[in-house]
């Protein structure tokens, strides 16, 4: 479908109209779609050969999905326990992310079912960042956020990606807030076009 693609080891933006194949591309990367001939090399490791759990990805799925029956804190603890993140590092990151995303500890103690769309999306982003991911995949991760929160969330992702050297793939139908990303790809009928027009 996509052919050979070299994404940058920093930030990448994939955009395209609905139905262009963005979500299928994400499902292939996550390992939910069986694609036996795909290889995905990150720092000389073929992630396509690993199971979804072993890939150690930081993911925000469409609509900022979080566990509907848990509190915000329980969602974060699920990631931390799954990824065996050190307690001290977890607490440090938690405070930093809470401050930058303007989510209070009290808010995180609430069930996610009572949170607004924007709060859920910020929580989903925290879950993606807190598990020490090898790669970040953010599928429409900022769509429910209002102006200020959106800018803060994008800045957090940008800083996180640069400081910790985590390759990041942002999937969005709206490119207006991502001018700073040099590596932009357009998804068109299942094909990935580099910087519009040139196939990479």
């Amino acid at each position: 479908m996509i052919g050979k693609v070299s994404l940058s080891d920093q930030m990448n933006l994939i955009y395209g109209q609905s139905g262009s194949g963005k979500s299928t591309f994400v499902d292939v990367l996550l390992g939910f779609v069986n694609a036996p001939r795909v290889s995905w090399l990150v720092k000389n490791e073929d992630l396509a050969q690993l199971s979804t759990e072993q890939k150690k990805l930081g993911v925000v799925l469409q609509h900022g999905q979080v566990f509907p029956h848990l509190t915000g804190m329980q969602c974060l603890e699920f990631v931390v326990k799954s990824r065996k993140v050190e307690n001290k590092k977890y607490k440090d990151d938690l405070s930093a992310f809470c401050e930058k995303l303007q989510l209070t500890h009290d808010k995180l103690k609430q069930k996610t079912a009572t949170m607004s769309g924007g709060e859920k999306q910020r929580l989903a982003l925290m879950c993606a960042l807190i598990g020490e991911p090898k790669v970040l995949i953010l599928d429409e991760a900022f769509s429910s956020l209002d102006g200020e929160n959106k800018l803060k969330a994008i800045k957090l992702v940008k800083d996180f990606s640069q400081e910790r050297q985590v390759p990041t793939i942002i999937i969005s139908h709206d490119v207006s807030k991502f001018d700073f990303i040099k590596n932009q790809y357009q998804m068109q009928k299942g094909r990935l076009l580099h910087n519009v027009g040139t196939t990479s």
Partner: protein
Amino acid sequence: MFFLILFLLSPFLILFFNITELNFSLTSEVKHVFAFTFEQSFLSALISVVLGFMGSLGLISLQNKKVSKAMEFMALAPCFVPVIFVVFSCLNISSFFKFSLQGLFGIIFVHSLINTGVCSVLFSTALKNKIAVINKLFVLHSKNSFVYVCKFILPLMIKDIVYIFSSVFLFCFTSFSIPLVIGGVQSTTVDLLIYEKILSGELSLAVTLAFVQFLFLALILFLLNSFKGNESSIEVSRIPWPRLSPLIVFAALPFIILCAGFVSPMSFSQNTSFYLKMSLNSLFIALLAGYLMFMFVQFLLAFLPNKFLEFFLQHYTSPSTALTCLAVVIFISSSVVLKLSLFWVYLILFIPFLYKMFLQSFVDQIRPVIKLAKTYGGDRWMIYKVVIFPLSYKVTLLVAFIAAAWVLGDYAVTSVLLGDLSTLALNIKNSMRAYRLDESFGLLMILLLGEGILFIIYRGLLKFGNKEY
């Protein structure tokens, strides 16, 4: 997962390995039984589908959502209450109006009573998916309700009609508990004949009958799966013909008959300790069956979502009661273990139906959540503990409660595997067969009390779950 599928298929596998003992001398008795079973199933399915279709037009014409929900509940109730209540109600009504319920007429009457309502609900669901298209055609071409139904609704519903007809036919063809009470000498069905051959020790003939029945049912199943109506995403709306709403009577009538037949004088012929012992025994069996059902469903859900397992469960239909019991009787020689195998049979008989009714849609709901848990790096155990168990607790409890309620009222499986009169339902069956309706009603009241206790336990566990999860 492999063992799960093996477990559900075990009756067929056991029979398959005993096929060497096949006795192909199909006597006139066997031919008559097959012809009778076909006749009663065909007529029962035909009546249920015709009345159910008319009921569905009424159901879908209702404008008030609450009334519509209440009517759906009334329509489904005869299918979900233990069969013993329906059979008693019918016998009581026949006794009051002085007509005989024995034989072909009785079997068709009870089968239709159970299936008409559920057909109405199934047809109305299928109709809702097509109604938007129908509305446009209706406005364009016709303003007469008869033309509307014949010209637009029926052609669009052919696949659904064949599918629902085959489902009901399948149910009636493998019906065991109803002919066991109201079938006479000339009204033996295949399942009943298998049961009689088990009791008389003619196992090779029983295996032959089960094998022929299986082949026949496999053919129906093939038909069923190829005619399954397609789900459409068209927006739901009501049909523009409110005058069809009185047809709701066809969907609700079985429930009204069921309630009307539940008025009777009662008597008790034994002492209290006898009833107490029997009631506790029945309750214990029902609770244990409910508990095992809960554990089994949880075990099943731990493997889901899984494409292969889901495909299997969607297309698999449980074997008939007699066939399953026969497989168990062949497989287990010890009488003590045979009594315990009761629960094995219940699981095999109930799981396919309950999965399609309650669990399939639940699995679709939790699919994205499990996907999320996997991306977060959760292993199988963690996903089960933190995600699947808390989310599935309520639906599993409901399934377990329904199974326990059915087991409490079951006299079909226990007739084969227990044989003695150690449960309430078995005693009720015997008194109903002897037309001792006063005594049956007394025992049914105790059974109803038992169902009440099960419901209280279910509510308690649900409340506990609401606090915990």
